[in-house]
């Protein structure tokens, strides 16, 4: 075993600020939805908007980072070990069997993770961001009496946005739980905090 830098500084910054923003957006968003009462509707809307713009800015930087560093390749789905990974989580994990895929700096996501995060990035986040922007800019008439977005029914936009929010919460619950399935229950979280994780040494004849 040796300590390896698996999550780089920007990646950790991105992960934790995105997590904070999404949780904050969840709280303020469900207040706008009428499920909670914390800040009051007016402040909830204001905070939700500010946080939304921050999240969009963060996502832009993250996309830039993924492209320039080539890290986007981590999310290319591979169906090779997908079945094995699912079997691990549904059977093997209970028998303390080893992980079917090895975590390396070049391939830090197992096939199930890669697929999940890909869906997260290309379906769920775009869903809430696009419906969120439509929601924000949905109006009959703007300051200059120009019709902007009103052809799409606000109810449809709002309902899809809410659906996205519910799915994000469900994701968050499972995601937090899955961090305990590492080498030790806290090793994954530690890695995301410090960047380092103890990984098995790659055997030379592996390749």
């Amino acid at each position: 075993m040796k300590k390896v830098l698996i999550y780089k500084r920007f990646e950790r910054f991105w992960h934790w600020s995105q997590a904070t923003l999404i949780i904050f957006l969840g709280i303020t968003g469900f207040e706008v939805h009428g499920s909670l009462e914390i800040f009051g509707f007016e402040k909830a809307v204001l905070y939700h908007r500010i946080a939304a713009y921050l999240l969009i800015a963060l996502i832009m930087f993250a996309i830039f980072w993924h492209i320039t560093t080539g890290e986007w390749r981590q999310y290319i789905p591979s169906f090779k070990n997908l079945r094995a990974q699912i079997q691990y989580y549904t059977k093997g994990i209970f028998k303390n069997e080893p992980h079917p895929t090895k975590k390396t700096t070049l391939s830090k996501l197992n096939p199930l993770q890669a697929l999940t995060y890909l869906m997260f990035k290309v379906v769920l986040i775009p869903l809430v961001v696009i419906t969120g922007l439509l929601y924000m800019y949905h109006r009959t008439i703007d300051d200059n009496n120009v019709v902007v977005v009103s052809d799409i029914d606000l109810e449809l936009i709002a309902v899809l946005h809410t659906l996205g929010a519910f799915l994000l919460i469900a994701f968050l619950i499972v995601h937090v739980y899955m961090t305990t399935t590492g080498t030790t229950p806290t090793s994954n979280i530690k890695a995301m905090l410090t960047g380092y994780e103890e990984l098995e040494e790659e055997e030379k004849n592996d390749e």
Partner: protein
Amino acid sequence: MLKGILITLFATVVILIFAKSLYDEGEQNIKLEELKQKYSLRKTPSVDHSRLSELKKNFRTPQDVTEACNSCHTERHKEIMSSSHWNWERVSYVEGRGIRYSGKRNVINNYCIGASSNELACASCHIGFGMTNDEFDFKNARNVDCMVCHDNSEEYIKASALAGYPDRTVNLTKVAQSVGLPNKSNCGACHFYSGGGNNVKHGDLEEALFDCNRDVDVHMASNGMDMVCTDCHTADKHQMLGKLYSVSSENINRSSCEQCHTNTPHQDRIINLHNAKVTCQACHIPIYAKVNATKMEWYWSEAGDLKNSEPYFIEDSMGNHSYLSIKGRFVWKKNVKPDYIWFNGTADHYIIGDTIKTEPLILNPLYGSYEDKDSKLYPVKIHIGDQIYDTKYKMLIQPKLFSVEKGDSGFWGDFNWKLACEAGMRIVGLPFSGEYGFVKTEMYWPVNHMVSPKEQAVTCNECHTRNNGRLVNVTGFYLPSRDKNNFVDILGILAIVFSILGVIAHGGIRTYLAIKNKRININF
């Protein structure tokens, strides 16, 4: 290197977004300050009428005063005689009816019903002299009453049932010499007392506005801007800006908040955008009838009850009549939260002779809907009650209410509905079958006055709330926080519940097996 640039850039973006939101809050509302400055300037009259020789004489009749006015203002009476204040009707286009004349002369209201056959009393709010019946000469310039609107001496009053003539005690010379631009008391003398008493009809126009504080009305407050009616209801050639939807039908020549405040008066963009669908009044008049109560319900069906053959009255806790033998039973309310409706500025009216098609019969349906791009949310006073109608011909009856002496069919003297109906319908030229009943009626009064200070405006969460918000009855559109899609909400909650259960089950089994297989040692 790259990481450093990225983090610096991101920090800059974060600071910019926060700075923008802080800057928006700190800005001064210059538009409002400019308006305050503009309306602080008092107009000074260019003529002192008390020095005009033409007015230094003893006027025997009010018509003589009018002639004196017209001797200098030679054409003004023509402007008056083409106004609705004089004609009590205007020509307008109404959907389903086409072009037609309507106004006080032929519509029915939900209070004292109508002026027809009761002119002698009702004309105390007509800007003319001598309207004793429906044969008033609308072409006679001598009968224009200049003083009722232009007296600045507070001396002039009209007699209560003298066909629009002034009270006999009025010193006409003094009044003639102190004319000027209309002030609150000129307009208020009629508009605050319509319906037979203070604040009866409107709810937002009443004598408290003569001298009120900012909490009652920010514009007219004595300790505030102290504006008068004509500051907003400006006039060009005696045609007043603004109209009342108890008698008006068209979306033209209206007075609005935007005429001064523009349609982007707030510094907050989101609030400004609300103006596309929400009127200023909807948020800025949280309650009306703030000082004195207004009539909310009026049941004519209960009128006519007598004690020892004499009419009587009952007062409610606020000292208002809750029952009058001559008029029926009333409900008064104070500090009323308005109802809200979609309204595009067009309306129809029940015109004498129309067939009753629905119950309750809406006397002035205000048109509008969420889908209509010209419609906005308006606060309204909804006045409900019942009125006498011909059960055979299915039309409202214009009864003769007022008469000078008993035995002349006037209901207020004789308390005989049948005679009053016969007399009233004969005068308006409509048949009366002899059979009558009472039909439920409603009337809508847009609330436009008694604007509160901004601190008291309706807050976001009074409408954007799940239950019992102000817009609970205004449906047909998606209102964030009030509305939700039950299917998606249940689906979403189930997704969360199953996630939690799944995690607990998976984690529980893992822990259990780990303990069982001694992978975890627990020392109790």
